[in-house]
């Protein structure tokens, strides 16, 4: 399993755009929003939690279709399926690799981008912690969506349609954590929910992902 993780990370680095692309996309969305909304600091600081969360969600979505598509096309997925590595483990590792290449850099960069949107100082910590707890769920749910659509020629758009509704609870609780943090309210409930969703998703979705992969490999 570690071998697969290392290989995926190495491929992401060498193929270029693995780490950088999602981050650049995140930056662009965050920069574009004030152009659309207007420069008033007050409005921006009110919508900043939502923007940062929606932008990181879209950035995570961007690279999902590459999770299995390349391995499916060059046959590596079939070889992994016949190897001693359980497909459930492979699904877990794929999600983890996706998180390390997109979710983790986003989490680290988000506070810096919070400045651009006049995020309230109190909220930085909550932004960081909610993204750190929530983005792994985005990667795992996305991996499931990628597994469902891996056999399709133009699965990318369909995958967005399947995955985005599944992102709703994570988004709501994640952004709510930051909003409450910014207003100085207690954040325990949404934060626990974000962590709970991530834990639940990593406990169950690898099985659903592996099932979808087996069906698509048939």
């Amino acid at each position, binding site marked *: 399993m570690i071998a697969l993780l290392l290989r995926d990370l190495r491929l992401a680095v060498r193929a270029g755009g693995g780490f950088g692309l999602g981050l650049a996309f995140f930056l662009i969305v965050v920069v574009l929003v004030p152009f659309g909304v207007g420069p008033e600091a007050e409005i921006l600081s009110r919508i900043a939690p939502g923007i940062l969360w929606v932008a990181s969600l879209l950035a995570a979505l961007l690279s999902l279709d590459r999770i299995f598509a390349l391995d499916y096309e060059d046959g590596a997925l079939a070889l992994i399926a016949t190897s001693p590595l359980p497909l459930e483990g492979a699904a877990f590792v794929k999600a983890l690799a996706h998180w390390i290449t997109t979710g983790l850099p986003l989490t680290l960069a988000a506070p810096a981008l919070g400045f651009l949107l006049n995020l309230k100082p109190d909220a930085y910590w909550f932004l960081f912690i909610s993204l750190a707890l929530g983005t792994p769920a985005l990667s795992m749910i996305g991996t499931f969506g990628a597994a469902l659509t891996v056999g399709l020629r133009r699965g990318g758009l369909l995958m967005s349609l399947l995955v985005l509704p599944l992102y709703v609870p994570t988004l709501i609780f994640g952004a709510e954590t930051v909003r409450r943090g910014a207003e100085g309210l207690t954040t325990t409930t949404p934060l626990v929910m974000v962590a709970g969703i991530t834990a639940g998703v990593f406990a169950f979705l690898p099985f659903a992902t592996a099932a979808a992969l087996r069906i*698509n490999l048939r």
Partner: protein
Amino acid sequence: MSLWEYANPKKFMSFTAPILPVVTVAALVCLVSGLVWGFFFTPEDYRQGSTVKIFYIHVPSALMAINAWFMMLVASLIWLIRRHHVSALAAKAAAPVGIVMTLIALVTGAIWGQPMWGTWWAWDPRLTSFLILFLFYLGYVALWAAIDDPDTAADLTSVLCIVGSVFAVLSRYAVNFWNQGLHQGASLSMDAEENVADIFWYPALVAIAGFVLLFIALVLLRTRTEIRLRRIRALETRARRS
């Protein structure tokens, strides 16, 4: 003689052929009588006036929107566990009906909301949940449409339906939490049940029965169509090979 015998497509076809017209007629009778009773023979609400009468369409369609998904979930589980083709096709057949029910619930909700809240759309937790449910339906139908092989499509949509159900429930909870976070104390709930007198309730029950029967009739009709399409496909495959 087991219930599962009706999962055989041929058995299902011959069994449902006489049932379908009966259910259709019953659905029409219930719908027409329930709606006419509700629209013309009940007093107007002292606060909401005649607008309250959209209740007779809104509540039954909303109920069916959720129950259609639930039926798809059960049918998907049966397909995954027992591999009965009729079950998978019934789930496929129910999805567009569920979409229409969700749309009706959303549109009537918006129309009802206009006089009540002074706006066509409010991010009321219930309306929002239905919007999310609508997205789930769209994804499910799109996945069916995207996959060529019928068995693969049935398998993958079933997996999606099960995972989607969990997330739909989670979304419902999340949306409740999210809106309560926005407007604390403000109640925009359209929950009419608590203060509905019997005089409104009886025609509503008839309308609900009408919607249930309509749903059954439409799903039966569409399942029969899907079975025939599948049979055509099977015959074509055989003709090509022989």
